[in-house]
């Protein structure tokens, strides 16, 4: 049971970090400080506009793949992975 608890805590730590990034790129950069960021430019985009209409979506995709990859490693490390190969 304590092994499972340690696994769960590691899972929660990873999750909190990734959700902070999720909040930062969407709610913070795309909404709360969007007007401030708009004074900077990324090619032809105002930076805030880029975050809210393009960048946040790219980050979302990356976050899920990072999570899946790290969780597969956690599963193995704590010996709770499912049988069967890819």
């Amino acid at each position, binding site marked *: 049971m304590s092994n499972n608890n340690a696994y769960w805590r590691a899972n929660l730590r990873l999750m909190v970090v990734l959700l902070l990034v999720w909040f930062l790129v*969407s709610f913070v950069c795309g909404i709360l400080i969007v007007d401030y960021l708009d004074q900077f430019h990324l090619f032809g985009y105002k930076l805030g506009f880029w975050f809210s209409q393009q960048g946040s979506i790219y980050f979302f995709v990356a976050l*899920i793949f990072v999570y899946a990859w790290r969780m597969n490693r956690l599963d193995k490390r704590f010996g709770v992975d499912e049988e069967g190969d890819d």
Partner: protein
Amino acid sequence: MSAQFLTYLFVGATFSVYIGIAIWSRSASTSDFYVAGSHVHPIANGAATAADWMSAASFLSMAGIIAFEGADGARYLMGWTGGYVLLALLLAPYLRKFAKYTVPDFVGDRYYSHAARLVAVVCVIFISFTYVAGQMRGVGVVFSRFLEVDINLGVVIGMGIVFFYAVMGGMKGITYTQVAQYCVLIFAYLVPAIFISVMLTNNPFPMLGLGSEMNDGSGDYLLDRLDGMTTELGMTAFTDGSKSTIDMFFITAALMAGTAGLPHVIVRFFTVPRVRDARISAGYALIFIALLYTTAPAVAAFARINIINHVDGIVYEQAPEWFRKWEDTGLIAWLDKNEDGQVQYRGGSALDPATPDYGQGRGDSGERMLNNAASDNDNELYIDRDIIVLAHPEIARLPDWVVALVAAGGLAAALSTAAGLLLVISTAISHDLMKKTFMPRINDRQELLFARIAAAVAVCVAGLFGIYPPGFVAQVVAFAFGLAAASFFPVILLGIFSTRMNKEGAIAGMVTGLTFTFGYIVYFKFVSPESDNAVYWLFGISPEGIGTLGMLLNFAVSLIVSRFTPAPPAEIQAIVQNIRVPRT
């Protein structure tokens, strides 16, 4: 070959493919029918989830909304993609480990309560029918404009196709049809976007073209040019928003939590073989979705530029063919305020009231007469937002086959979502109501028969929604997301992350969240629509965003009530411990 012939050809060809797949993948058991036997490859499930998720609203309406709202459109772009992060990290893997068929299954078992299961069933059916009604309007619009058949006949054809593969194939048939539909819809969305991106910026990637320089030799960035054009015509600059920050925040959060809590999306993660597949499958789904969602703002900006360039200042008598066709369909209107025979496109809404009410006969230039009064500005043009994606290829004078392709894509988007929703409705009835509540002794074959009958009835009801569209469809879309955010999302999340959460807490939370959200939306949309503006809103939050507050209330009430009531039984706590770990 004419555009209409090509449209018949494309639509006919894609429909044959869907039927072929349905025959090939018939369902033999309830497990096949509900979750495709849990044998779907994560990439296939990703594509199916994407098609399931991207509805007529994403395909037909979203770019149009962004084209007219500019920066404010970001709430849909972030809201409808960010929810997948919540789904992948917080819900999907655990629900897959739980290994049941439906969302009410989880709610009923985790909270050891038939009452909780029934509340969940009612929510599932309400949310799904709300959503289906919107899809049927999409099918009707595409058929009436491009195939020039009666809207009702179009709806009947669409329902016939869905009936065939949903009733016969269940989840198995729907899954593989949705994979094909994803391919059709993404191809149909990207091809015109690439054409137009090259025409305006020479960049073949629309999402990069949006941030590139115009290719007319001026060296201006496209977005800067568009900001200039819109400001000059007295409109809000494209990259500036007009919604308040708090409202944007709450709407985006409600759409995200709502996305993660929508039953027809969640159930897709029951169809993959393993927990690790559920995690990665959400990632594939979001890649497939992001392909369309990062293209949509580019389509929106290109369309706004093309409309201003090709419409503002033209003489009505020389207006292009598409302009008159959409006017005949009732989705474009022109009121010649200064009687110069030219179309002036300016800021503000042209008509009072804002949507056209056509009268009899034709005006001096041959335009359809309107009963609306002229509004107090120089704008003479009304364009329905829903036509932007469909009309844009014609506005930009793309070849006929592209126009035909877009029609087939719009149908694929609407039909795939409708099928997914109908399956969720039929499962809720046959599995959660019949098998689990009222007739627990029926066997697998009888349950499968009930599922097919329920699917058939649901298809017919959805068809009626398409033929007699309830006038409140536009008003109730906020319901689907708000209610999912305020009910399912917290109840499932707490069920996984809090072993202490009991049925008293969960039910009290759901009831509070639902009542509050439902009441707020009903008040501003139906009881007192004249006060539906920021002055009267609670904290300045619109009905669209109120689901977020409902969700927070749900969390608070659940946590407090569960602390003062008995802990859940030991075997329930063991289930919670068990779903947290992938290995059985």
